[in-house]
């Protein structure tokens, strides 16, 4: 016969559905004789039932879906799909602007964040860095994490936070979109170059710009989007060639 302590140690495994059949028998045998353990287990099971089944949450506003879709439409309209030369002109300055912003934020004279009064807005530099680099550690690349760790943690004043946070967020979204456009474009160019498209090859040669390769998180568990790389020309498989012509 197991003791009360033994029985309680098994509660979690039992409730997680991970207790072996033989130990379940032991636990049940104990609970039949011990009202205190029986009661505690019943309480935990009741809690689980309520959490699982009681829909006590308020309702979402009726217009929720429409609002999401409207916001999605406006985001899609603002997504740029440009040519590489334009990208080089727009993308690079954007990235540069982002790093300058970061540099400004990090060199701002700091205020003491611990002595604020209630209601006063104070920038947490970590927050700004999170905005710039992505959301959580899990989605950041190793290189970005390393850079983040090396970045000094300093405080900047509330007004800087208020002023720059939306701008940075906006910049981040634009950079993300630009990069996605670049990916699509890269694919098209690879296909066209493999096809022997002469004018495009010339344009391509003229727009070769050396750009850094870095990863940018998109908040998804999938692969992250990569910054511009010089594409390798992939010759088309005959089957792909057929598909392409069929389009």
């Amino acid at each position, binding site marked *: 016969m197991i003791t009360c302590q033994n029985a309680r140690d098994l509660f979690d495994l039992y409730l997680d559905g991970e207790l072996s059949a033989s130990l379940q028998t032991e636990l049940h045998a104990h609970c039949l004789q011990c009202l205190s353990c029986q*009661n505690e287990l019943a*309480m935990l099971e009741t809690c689980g039932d309520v959490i699982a*089944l009681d829909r006590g949450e308020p309702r979402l*506003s009726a217009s929720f879906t429409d609002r999401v879709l409207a916001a999605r439409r406006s985001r*899609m309209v603002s997504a740029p799909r440009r040519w590489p030369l334009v990208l080089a002109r727009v993308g690079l300055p954007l990235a540069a602007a982002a790093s300058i912003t970061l540099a400004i934020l990090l060199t701002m004279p700091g205020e003491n964040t611990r002595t604020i009064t209630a209601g006063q*807005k104070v920038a*947490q530099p970590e927050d700004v860095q999170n905005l710039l680099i992505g959301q959580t550690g899990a989605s950041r690349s190793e290189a970005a994490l390393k850079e983040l760790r090396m970045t000094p943690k300093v405080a900047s004043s509330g007004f800087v936070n208020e002023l720059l946070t939306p701008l940075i967020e906006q910049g981040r979204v634009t950079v993300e979109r630009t990069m996605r456009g670049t990916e699509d474009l890269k694919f098209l160019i690879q296909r066209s170059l493999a096809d022997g498209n002469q004018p495009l090859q010339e344009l391509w040669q003229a727009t070769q710009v050396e750009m850094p390769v870095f990863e940018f998180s998109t908040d998804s568990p999938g692969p*992250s989007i990569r910054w511009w790389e010089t594409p390798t020309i992939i010759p088309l498989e005959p089957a792909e060639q057929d598909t392409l012509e069929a389009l």
Partner: protein
Amino acid sequence: MTRSKERKLVAEARNGSEDAARQLVDSHKDRLFAFVWRIMRKHDEAEDICQEAFLRAFDSLDSFSSQYRFSTWLFTIGYRLCLNHIRRRKSLTGEMDFSSLASPEPDAAVCLAESEDARLMKSKIWEAVGRLSPPQKAAVMLFYREGMSCEDIARTLEIPMATVKSHLHRARGRLRDSLAALVKDWTQIPSLRDIAS
């Protein structure tokens, strides 16, 4: 929603179909909102987070891997956004996290058929859940409400499985401490599963 239907809708939404996007929102919004609201306990904030979670999910449909469920992905994004909001709240208000205080916003009206005792007990249980830490609330909601395994919860919250188990363990300990004195004999509540539904 079946997995194949979900995959089809995701593919259509990726190609710009608004109808597919609408179906994805409609079929996931209530579950996501319940999860987020239980963590935040503020209606406006929870709605904003849900909207942002959907937009971010749509934004990165290109990199969505069909080995995940769309809902898992939404919960992951929603949870990250909750943590960001809580962090921001703390930075605006000193160190206080109001989501861990008891019921800043009451639960919606409970159904009429149930007894006063049952109603009181449920509200006490939710109050105790409201006092858990955000990761504990998230783990508890995904485990009980969503019926996820500890492994799925670990993937969704992006934490090790041992941490998920410890969150559940500590959450149960805290529920027990808050509720033990509430009812003398919990074994005499046989009909709760029916009442709760």
